[in-house]
């Protein structure tokens, strides 16, 4: 599969503030790619460089086979963008903005426009000054989803939506995936990313810290295990990849690196297992651990 977005070593500074510090991001055609990071990690800066609004200081970025800076307008006809903080012209109605943005992009699908307005329960005759944040976001989402494009760049698109509308958004993205469109979804709502994305890139302080499929990433994480045994276990604390071990008589609780599960389970089986619960790592833990471990790394380097 060809890459819809290919970013290598991207750098951008605003004065003395470094926003991007060698960021890498690859999004394959046809996939829904989660772009995760805490506030201020550089997600929006990356997307604005992809849109040709900002000029990178270093590194390379390719999108849809073109250069985001010099070929901005040609590329923009093939993509749609939803900003994280949607501003609209106060005197325009939502319907007017949807039409305007669609036409400037090169046309809307009338049928989809109508059905999206219905599904998102948007009143297109209201003036933008009367819309709430969520409704402004809906306007931008409808304008983007109703246009016939190859790539969707969504910057925290559900930040203002209520849970009901978030569900509508998820089903829309599912449909986009089936249509074969590529989606770059920047977010810090992990459940959303877990539900929607094929692959995930996690960034922090302008650098990529992890990238891969959810399965790949889970591999790097720990499974939490609690078990009741026939007798007290032997030598669990000697095994590699076992953390937070808590043994009370014949009850065991701990976390185990996913690739060190086999020797651990063998040791449990040797003691005789009465009951066993295991919890797969959530993206949330992964996310938190990425940051805390990066902090440790930083501490290690500086000390």
């Amino acid at each position: 599969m060809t890459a819809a977005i290919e970013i290598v070593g991207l750098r951008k500074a605003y004065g003395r503030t470094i926003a991007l510090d060698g960021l890498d991001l690859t999004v394959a055609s046809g996939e829904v790619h989660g772009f995760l990071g805490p506030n201020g990690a550089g997600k929006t800066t990356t997307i604005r460089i992809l849109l040709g609004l900002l000029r990178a200081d270093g590194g390379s970025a390719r999108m849809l086979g073109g250069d985001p800076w010099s070929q901005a307008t040609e590329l923009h006809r093939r993509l749609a963008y939803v900003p994280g903080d949607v501003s609209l012209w106060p005197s325009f109605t939502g319907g007017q903005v949807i039409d305007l943005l669609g036409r400037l992009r090169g046309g809307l699908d009338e049928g989809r426009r109508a059905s999206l307005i219905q599904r998102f329960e948007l009143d297109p005759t209201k003036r933008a000054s009367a819309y709430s944040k969520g409704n402004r976001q809906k306007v931008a989402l409808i304008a983007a989803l109703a246009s016939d494009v190859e790539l969707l760049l969504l910057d925290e698109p559900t930040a203002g939506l209520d849970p009901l509308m978030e569900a509508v958004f998820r089903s829309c993205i599912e449909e986009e995936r089936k249509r074969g469109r590529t989606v770059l979804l920047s977010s810090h709502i992990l459940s959303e990313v877990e539900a929607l994305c094929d692959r995930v890139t996690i960034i922090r302080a302008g650098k990529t810290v992890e990238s891969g499929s959810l399965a790949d990433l889970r591999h790097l994480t720990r499974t939490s295990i609690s078990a009741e045994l026939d007798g007290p276990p032997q030598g669990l604390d000697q095994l590699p990849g076992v953390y937070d071990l808590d043994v009370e008589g014949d009850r065991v609780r701990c976390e185990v690196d996913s690739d060190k599960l086999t020797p651990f389970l063998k040791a449990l089986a040797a003691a005789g297992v009465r009951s066993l619960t295991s919890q797969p790592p959530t993206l949330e833990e992964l996310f938190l651990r990425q940051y805390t471990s990066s902090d440790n790394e930083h501490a290690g380097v500086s000390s």
Partner: protein
Amino acid sequence: MSTLTGTGALTRLAVRRDRIMLAVWLYVFAAFIAATVVGFRGLYKTQASLASFAAGAGHNSAFLSLYGPLYGDSLGSVSAWRVSAVLSVVGSLFSIFVVIRHTRADEESGRLELTGSEPVGRHAALATGVLVAAIANLVIGAVLAVVALALGLPAGGSFLLGAGIACCGLAFTGVAAVTAQLSASARAARGLAIGALVVAFALRAVGDASSASGPRLLSWLSPVGWAVLDRAFGGGRWWVLALGILLAAALVIAGGVLAGRRDYDAGLLPQRPGPARASASLSSPLGLAWRLQSGTLYAWLAGALIYGLLIGSSARGIGGLLKSASTRKAVSDYGSGQGGLSEIYLAAILGFTGLVIAAYAVSAVLRLRSEESGGLAEPVLATGTGRLAWASAHVLIAAAGTAAMSLLAGLGTAVGYGALFGPLVWAGLALAPAALVLCGLAVALFGLVPSRSVAGSWTLFGLFALILFLGPLLRASHWLLDVSPFTHSPKLPGGTVSALPVVLLCLIALALTGAGLAGLRRRDIG
């Protein structure tokens, strides 16, 4: 908890936010009155020449409708007559902006919600807006009085002049306190209040210009009229001040009652639904720019036409005013110094019109910057619309609007004057090149130093305006005059036009625009 809790803290915050703007406005007021008094003193060196001017101006109906009746023939009377109505309008505009900024605009942007969740009373925001505007008006009044005193005018008249202008500002502080409750959008609330100001000015203009048997009483219905009717330096009717103060108090109380009766973020006027679909015209960068700019442009065009009609008709009786040689020379310093008396006068006053047109050009170009910093450029530039197409649509409207305004100003002057039709239309059009240089400067600043473009453009504009106003005093240091594009505008009607300066002005405007657009292509957006 009182509904006014937190007003003190909010007011301190508001004054802090506004301190630079307040200082700039104060400077404008001080400079305006100082320039007027010094100007009259320089133009009419003897009491006899001042009296002959007063006798003429006091009976010219165009002057009457523009400035109101003239009480007395002293330097103070003439200066007060010239500044009262104008500064009352400016002070009222200022008050409207301040009140709406701290009430409806903050509510619309959601900033008020942030402070509203703190221990802040329901009426605190309104009280803050009113308080800041009231304090500002009092300071403006005091500054006007002190400047007038310092220039040697009598104390009583000086204070009455300042107080009268401050009271008109207070009255419109009250008007804005009410309109802020009526509409849910700051733009509409501001528009309603400015509409009331236009009506007040028109009432005064009609009342003051009418004959003794006509509807003179209309002036008494207008706060702008009161600022003239208090007769500073012409007897002094201090009780007129009470009218403005009473009206202000009544309106502020009404605003408070209305504020108590409505929901947060809602207006009392219903929000009408708009069209669900965009019309066919709204499908290109130019269509969008036109939709955003046309309303303002129409207002400026109407203003240019009306202003032209006024100055044209005021020039009809000008021959009598310019009898003395020294007066004639003083006026011709601003104008061409050639042709008949009326032509000299028209050339001088049209020169100032060029400044107004340039103000439009700058504000129209700076719309680009407010679109950009308001996050409204981003969604457009993320479509197939390129930066050049987006920016040049706005620049095109600014340039065409500048030309149209120049034409209408000339046309209005010609119709108002009732003669010299062709020359006056040309004189209007000849104002465009200098204004286009300002347009180009704004584009250049927007493209090359966007974060400084608003302050920079208006600073340059103010500098050039100052050079134009002070031009005759600066004859010795010619190089400073040459900096301003307005110095190089053809002095029409009456003067001779040489092609070179006009062509150069146009080329400079083009080069600046090109530099700005080239800079825009290279820089970051946002």
